């Protein structure tokens, strides 16, 4: 249990809690309206009234970063949810039933993996239309292959365990065994995958928004803020740096958290 107290794990927890608090506060309070423009104070350096400075429209960057956290968490959780749901259905059936079911599902997953994820997302978004909903769907689909593989491998592992065989001998059907006997035991690797995939989703959203395909104005999104900050990289460097640091914190935080959970499991095994 000592291992779970490792420094990276603590850093991860602190980062995630900080960002989460920021997101929760933003529901009730932001120093300025996130979309409130003030042409009188464009690209101001950080000061007491604007701790993170202002952007090219004179909007308060802190308020927009806080509001953007909502988007980031929304996209993270919902795309992980989509990925988990489909990944579970596919991975559990492939792993549990094996044989030709496994063969068909895994070849399909291999095809998805072979196709660059971000390209797939861009394609999906250009077929439909850019926006929050389609970004979530695209990123969710991108994460399906990873979940499928992880869930499949733990199902293959647990399928050979005596207690699973014993429940077959009790007369339990496939669904019962999958839900009651294997899933709870496979929970921790799935949790690790979900945490790591969360940071992947946030990075994906930033990437898509940076390309202008993700969240559309005026909703604040970290990726798009990065894009907007790019022309002013020389005149207002803090804009790029602050947004970049926030994204890094988020991704790093969830990665460290995921690693920490994995380490914690290793001590048990």
């Amino acid at each position: 249990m000592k291992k779970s107290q490792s420094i990276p794990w603590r850093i991860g927890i602190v980062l995630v809690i900080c960002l989460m608090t920021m997101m929760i506060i933003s529901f009730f309070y932001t120093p300025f309206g996130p979309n409130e423009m003030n042409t009188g104070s464009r690209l101001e350096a950080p000061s007491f009234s604007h701790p993170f400075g202002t952007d090219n429209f004179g909007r308060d960057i802190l308020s927009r970063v806080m509001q953007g956290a909502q988007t980031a968490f929304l996209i993270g959780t919902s795309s992980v949810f989509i990925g988990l749901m489909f990944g579970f259905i596919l991975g559990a059936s492939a792993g549990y039933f094996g044989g030709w079911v496994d063969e068909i599902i895994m070849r399909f997953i291999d095809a998805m993996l072979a196709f660059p994820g971000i390209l797939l997302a861009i394609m999906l978004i250009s077929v439909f239309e850019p926006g929050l909903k389609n970004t979530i769907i695209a990123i969710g689909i991108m994460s399906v292959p990873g979940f499928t593989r992880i869930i499949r491998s733990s199902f293959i592992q647990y399928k050979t365990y005596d207690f699973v065989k014993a429940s077959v001998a009790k007369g339990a059907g496939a669904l019962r065994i999958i839900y009651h006997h294997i899933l709870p035991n496979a929970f921790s690797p799935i949790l690790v995958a979900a945490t790591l995939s969360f940071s992947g989703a946030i990075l994906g959203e930033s990437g898509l928004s940076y390309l202008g395909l993700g969240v559309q104005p005026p909703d604040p999104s970290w990726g798009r803020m990065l894009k907007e900050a790019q022309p002013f990289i020389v005149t207002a460097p803090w804009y790029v740096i602050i947004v970049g640091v926030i994204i890094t914190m988020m991704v790093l935080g969830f990665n460290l958290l995921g690693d920490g959970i994995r380490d914690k499991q290793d001590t048990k095994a």
Partner: protein
Amino acid sequence: MSTPLLSIENLDVAFHFQDGDYNAINHVSFNVYPNEVLGIVGESGCGKSLTSKAIMGILPENASVKQGSITFRETNLVTMKEKQWQKIRGDAISMISQEPMTSLNPLLTVGKQIAEVLKQHRSYSKKEMKEKTIALMKEVGLPRAEALYKSYPHQLSGGMRQRIVIAIALIASPQLIIADEPTTALDVTIQAQILDLFKNIKNTRNSSLIFISHDLGVIRQVCDRVVVMYAGRVVEQGKVADILYEPKHPYTKGLIQSIPDHTKRGQELYTIPGNVPGLKERKRGCPFADRCAHRMDICHTHFPDEVYVENQAVSCHLYTKEEVKHVSTIH
């Protein structure tokens, strides 16, 4: 005796490998009658467990029944679909596995794991299920059953876990219970307690029991009849007393000779020379031929037919010749 509850005829189970199929069970035939305890003995790798798995329809993925039939209550189990199997498993036929340590789900309370069988096969209310489970837990000798109902497998000792596993097998009052080396993983004192429990089950329940073991001492204590298996074949079967005191097959004789007892004190214990031939090394003829002191030329080419000698059925060329004594049938 009455009609058999379970009747296995000419069963062949083969493992499929890259280079072909290898029979792990060859022409196995035996019956289980209502309310009897049938023992299956043999060394490791003789196909005892595989036979029981074939009865439950839970053969490993690379094995299948090649021919023969397993008839249970007038239905041939071999040709059954998975859905029909699910109705029978745990309800009409149940199994007690070798490993009480690993055959319980570590994340479910033991009470739930026992009640799960009822949930699967009966439509009781939650309260009824719990009552029945606790009553049975008491019956299999678990103290403080109410408290244990909510405990997890890791909180219990090996003997208690084995009692839970036995309770799982008994809860639906199945007609046939298969106990696959239920005492092997336990230490001697617990083993004795579990054997007492089996004797109890035998006396109080209307179930037939197939008791698999490699320990003839254990078999003697609980079984009525015994089937001796060697390298996937039944070599001898009959009543326990007959087999133990008047063994006919050289393999059975060897097994009995190798049981330690007080009369053999100070002497070197007898061992049957050699090992069970591996699956791919099995040739035509009697698989025991290479280890047998009485082998004849015919042993290497033909497996003997089953003949009745005195009170038991034996498959050995020593008895297939002229000196075959006429005997009444076993049952």
